[in-house]
């Protein structure tokens, strides 16, 4: 269940090929890639700085992946999250979930992203024409995460 927090970019093929190497039992991989957009909440965005809480980040992501592993039949999961300075079109995050069948892979991947968005200690600061501004948390992220709470 590899979880990595890094400044460096990642290559999708390299990561996914290493992730699935030697595992012919994998039938499905659901992947999510988050990218820096050049616009947000109506303002042009020329760059992004990602701050995090190093001692907690790894632990929080591992906890989220462990929850996904308990809830779905998955073979493995991979999370890479970048920190530091990013430009529009840069990759921010990669989540990949491997499973025998697609339903589990899709749902676990979406779950990990929803929880990452509300539980993992990262904060984005955007550079806009009016200066730097901290990105506000979205209520829609809270409701996306709340969907997964078992009744």
């Amino acid at each position: 269940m590899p979880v990595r927090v890094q400044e460096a970019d990642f290559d999708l093929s390299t990561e996914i090929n290493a992730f699935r190497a030697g595992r012919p039992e994998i039938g499905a991989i659901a992947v999510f890639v988050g990218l820096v957009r050049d616009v947000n909440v109506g303002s042009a965005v020329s760059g992004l700085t990602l701050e995090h809480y190093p001692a907690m980040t790894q632990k929080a992501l591992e906890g989220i992946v462990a929850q996904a592993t308990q809830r779905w039949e998955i073979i493995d999961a991979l999370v890479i999250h970048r920190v530091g300075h990013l430009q529009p079109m840069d990759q921010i995050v990669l989540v990949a979930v491997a499973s025998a069948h697609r339903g589990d892979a899709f749902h676990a991947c979406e779950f990990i992203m929803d929880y990452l968005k509300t539980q993992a200690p990262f904060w984005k600061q955007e550079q806009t024409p009016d200066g730097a501004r901290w990105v506000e948390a979205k209520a829609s992220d809270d409701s996306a995460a709340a969907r997964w709470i078992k009744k």
Partner: protein
Amino acid sequence: MSVTILYFARLRETLGMTQEKIELPAHAASVAGLLDHLRARGEEWHAALAPTQSYRVAVNQDMADITTPVCDGDEVAIFPPVTGG
């Protein structure tokens, strides 16, 4: 007892503080007690940490709530709602 406090993102900027080590009285040994202790520092702290403000607290790198106990040697982090991903 001695507690390390970390501040992140907008709260770090607002409070002008990244990290500090404080002596917390035994009667304040919870997240609620620690927050009251910090709010007593003055108007800026009172405003930034008001219960109506949106922020989160972690104790020893786990998400916490106001009832979570705080013990000697703990690391407490105070930060805005997260915005990664």
